[in-house]
């Protein structure tokens, strides 16, 4: 027999044998799986960000298929994913929820809030926070080592030149990975339609704040007097915005002696009014 015919014969016989083997295997080792899981996964963005609270998109799809999770938990997927999941599962989904975006409640970058010691160690905010309470002068302020930026699965966060994270709202899906990563809980998800945010998280007394930061809330409560009743409340030594329907904070923002308020543009980057951050 020639080389080519024999090769063809051998390969052909092997192919038939393997085919029979696979057929038998698929018949006798078959595992029942919920076919809907595959369909559900197809509706999800596949970023495995964990915003839904499950282990990746597949984990969430399994939970939805098992009925243990609601179909509208995928934040990056938005209404489209929610509708898709709801259709597969035959559940009515309300997609008119207000979208939210991540914002940073600190603007004490380099030049505004200094270092209290020369830190040597791991370039991770969570690790730096373990060393003598962190190198930042303000014990509540941003440590600036970019753990949030590294955690963002959508590359929506870059560290500004002043070492404060800048969030690109076009890319941000509000998955919350940065919220979980920040050891000082400075990042928070706010409705996309709000006009201002208070970019400070310090609970320190005014004297301590003044010593450490040039843009920290000193609990003077001037903003409260310049805002509608109940729109700003005292939370310890910090003002907190409650965002009642249609509330305008521009007057309060204008009057804040420490310039703690940051105007939020409707779209695009959450503008810190720092020229350095803008240039980034």
């Amino acid at each position, binding site marked *: 027999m020639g080389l080519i015919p024999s090769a063809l014969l051998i390969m052909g016989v092997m192919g038939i044998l393997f085919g029979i083997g696979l057929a038998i295997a698929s018949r006798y080792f078959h595992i029942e799986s919920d076919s809907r899981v595959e369909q559900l996964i197809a509706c999800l963005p596949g970023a495995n960000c964990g915003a839904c609270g499950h282990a990746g998109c597949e984990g969430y799809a399994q939970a939805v298929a098992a009925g243990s999770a609601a179909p509208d938990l995928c934040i990056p997927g938005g209404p489209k994913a929610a509708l898709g999941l709801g259709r597969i599962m035959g559940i009515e989904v309300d997609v008119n929820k207000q979208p939210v975006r991540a914002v940073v409640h600190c603007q004490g970058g380099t030049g505004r809030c200094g*270092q209290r*010691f*020369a*830190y*040597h*160690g791991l370039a991770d905010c969570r690790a730096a926070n373990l*060393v003598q309470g962190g*190198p930042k002068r303000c014990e509540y302020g941003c440590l600036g080592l970019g753990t949030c930026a590294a955690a963002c699965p959508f590359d929506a966060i870059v560290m500004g030149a002043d070492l404060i994270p800048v969030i690109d709202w076009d890319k941000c899906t509000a998955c919350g990975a940065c919220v979980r990563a920040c050891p000082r809980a400075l990042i928070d998800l706010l409705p996309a339609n709000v006009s201002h945010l208070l970019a400070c998280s310090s609970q320190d007394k005014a004297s301590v704040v003044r010593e450490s930061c040039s843009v920290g809330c000193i609990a003077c409560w001037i903003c409260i007097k310049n805002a509608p009743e109940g729109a700003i409340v005292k939370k310890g030594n910090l003002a907190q915005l409650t965002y009642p329907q249609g509330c305008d904070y521009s007057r309060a923002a204008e009057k804040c002696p420490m310039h703690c308020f940051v105007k939020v543009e409707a779209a695009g980057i959450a503008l810190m009014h720092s020229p350095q951050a803008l240039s980034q």
Partner: protein
Amino acid sequence: MSTPDSLPPMEWSVSASPHIKDRENTPRIMWSVVAALAPAGMWGLYVFGVQALYVILLCVISAAATEAIIQRLRGRPVTLCDGSAVVTGLLLAYCLPSASPVIQNGQVVGLTWLKWQVPVVGAVVAIGIAKQCFGGLGHNIWNPALVGRAFVQLAYPSCVSLSQWPWPAGRVDAVTKATALAKGAPAAFSLQDLFIGNVPGCIGEISALFLLIGAAYLIARKYVNWRLPLGYLLALALFATLFAWAPRHPIAPWVNDFAASFVQFRGGELPLGGFASDWLRFVGMQIFAGGVILGAFFMATDMVTSPLTSRGQFIYGVGCGALTALIRFFSSYPEGVCYAILLMNTIRPYVDRWTRQRVIGQTR
């Protein structure tokens, strides 16, 4: 006592403990390896001349250049000063031939410079693919120099696996001979020649003596754990002895001599003395011919690709030795050091896992 205000305000340096550290550092280790490799290199230069210098320089420069360029491209700091790229370049050069024989009508008529592509491609593959692709220093799975060497072995077989090698004594007259390990090689090499390095072979591999001088320094500095080369040599001796009379294709005559003498010994026809000296010669040839000394003391002991614990190092050495013997006796390739070490590199993580230290107070 004065008041706290008398203390000037200072910005202290703060880090996690410990606050004092040993003076040892990575560059010092790497440059010590370079220093330890120097004697064997000097010998290579002495016996092979300027052609060997050309190969060494090409290897080292291309290794360093590749490292620098890739680190620049990756946007990482360029760390040529740590010496690790130089070590890789040197090791690669040490396992390449110094020159190529010019063959006409099956006869060696002269020696010519090694093709420049061989060292350059070897170094680029070693640093670029085997090291930097895996994340750079400390992250590579395989010894970069050996990967480079294995690559050029396949890419330029006629330049690397020579049937006729430059002969040290005849560097002027372009005399070549088969290496001691080659199948059908004449049993012309005495153990003394092999030990000192008066034999044909790769630039840095030939002189066991000068390699051992460097290795002794590394062992004294504790950069090399002696258990690894010991395991390597013991296993090689043991397995080579076992394999020597297994059914095999024709190999070097001294192996056959030994096997014959063993058969005779078993038959009771020879006094023990004759067998023992044959065995010593056989084991000596196994250890001193080819790349075993360079491999056992400098290649396998590469920190990144060898196990962490002493126990692991010994077991790993044994694996390298056994595989070397296996390849030498049962493959078509006369030398097995390179592939043996690369294979052991591959299972290194498992060796580390099996040979974990016992935690103090560990129950179970």
